[in-house]
């Protein structure tokens, strides 16, 4: 059975509201996080990010001068950021769909609406730690793979080639990562949700029903690693990069 050892995780909390920073800090420390750094605006967050390379960033949206969205966009610059892959959780009072889409398209990993709860924050942290997602780079987007779910009903063309460009850098891939070679070798079309089509006016099936997740026992947003570990076929799980 696996558990998350939060004592090894460092978190940067960015919020212009001191009380909200205190609340988030208290929750994180109760989870076991020992290194919590705070920043009260986007500019000081960037400085803290460059100096301390936190493992996770939790940021508010509405802040003076550099807001949370701009902060995410600055961090998700693969050519200039010192860690463009850092998991980012957007914690905001905004709950409108267009805001969620904006945050997603800027490259946030998770979106968490205030009011905050211990459970909702834990689930977002759990998601970014236990289920790391590959990143996608196009001319218009750099960020975590926005396709969380395989859509078995999708019949349209595939924008991603079966031979996706993969940069594994210098290290061996994490064995817990999705095995692209195995997926490439498969003969099935791994249909994905087409977010562009959705954005163009279809139903927003990309929205995660966080309320339902929070209310329920199951984290329906996640890959079923239990099944994978038990020897199940990964192709039945999340599909990526094809």
């Amino acid at each position: 059975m696996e558990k998350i050892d939060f004592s090894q995780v460092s978190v940067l909390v960015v919020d212009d509201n001191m009380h909200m920073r205190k609340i988030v800090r208290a929750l994180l420390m109760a989870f076991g996080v020992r290194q919590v750094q705070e920043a009260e605006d986007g500019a000081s967050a960037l400085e803290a990010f460059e100096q301390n390379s936190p493992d996770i960033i939790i940021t508010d949206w509405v802040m003076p001068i550099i807001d949370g969205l701009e902060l995410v966009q600055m961090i998700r610059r693969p050519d200039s950021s010192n860690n463009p892959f850092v998991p980012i959780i957007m914690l905001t009072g905004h709950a409108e769909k267009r805001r969620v889409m904006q945050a997603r398209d800027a490259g946030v990993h998770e979106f968490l609406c205030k009011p905050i709860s211990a459970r909702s924050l834990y689930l977002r942290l759990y998601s970014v730690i236990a289920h790391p997602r590959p990143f996608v780079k196009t001319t218009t987007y750099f960020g975590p793979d926005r396709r969380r779910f395989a859509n078995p009903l999708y019949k349209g063309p595939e924008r991603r080639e079966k031979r996706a460009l993969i940069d594994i850098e210098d290290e061996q891939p994490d064995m817990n990562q999705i095995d692209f070679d195995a997926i490439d070798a498969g003969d099935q079309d791994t249909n994905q949700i087409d977010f562009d089509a959705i954005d163009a006016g279809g139903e927003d099936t990309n929205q995660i029903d966080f309320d339902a997740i929070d209310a329920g026992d199951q984290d329906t947003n996640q890959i079923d690693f239990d099944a994978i570990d038990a020897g199940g076929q990964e192709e039945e799980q999340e599909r990526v990069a094809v």
Partner: protein
Amino acid sequence: MTRKSPPADKRAEEEVEVVLPAKTLRHVVTDDGRKGGPQIDMDAIQRAEKALDKLSVSFGMWMGEEIDTLRDAHAAAVAEDMKGEARDAFFRAAHDLRGEAATLGFPLVGQVAGSLADLLSMLPPNLEISPGLVDGHIQAINAMIREDARGDDNKTAIALANCLREASGQLLEAHGALDNDIGSSAETDAA
């Protein structure tokens, strides 16, 4: 290792690159030897809920500070004819209250603050917002704090919040500024 290939179809003119980050946080996932994948640690969640409960002794004072900030920001914005940075700061104060009030035990205050924040952010900056409507929001928040309207079951506070939300919605709609998803925001505020 890098592999490239041409796009799959005409729609996909741009090249799509999938990158596996070299560093993930999977190393902080510990295994106790028993079968099963990562588990949600309910003990950690309960510890955090207790920590929040301990912190709650300060919530009344924090709420007072937030209300003071909102009042000051309102006064400054009025002095600047609801324009420029003063208006932005007023919006931020209302928006902060929208996000924080429910956690501090005053969800209906959060709902009214959210209605005010929507007025300040969604209407065109050059449009004069009725001072009466803005004042109505501030007075409602003051009254809720004065009456210690915690929780979400104070009937007068609910009626007040709904009335203001409706008035704001009508104004936003009249100026084509009503967000189609504003209902979700309101529901979240009220939750």
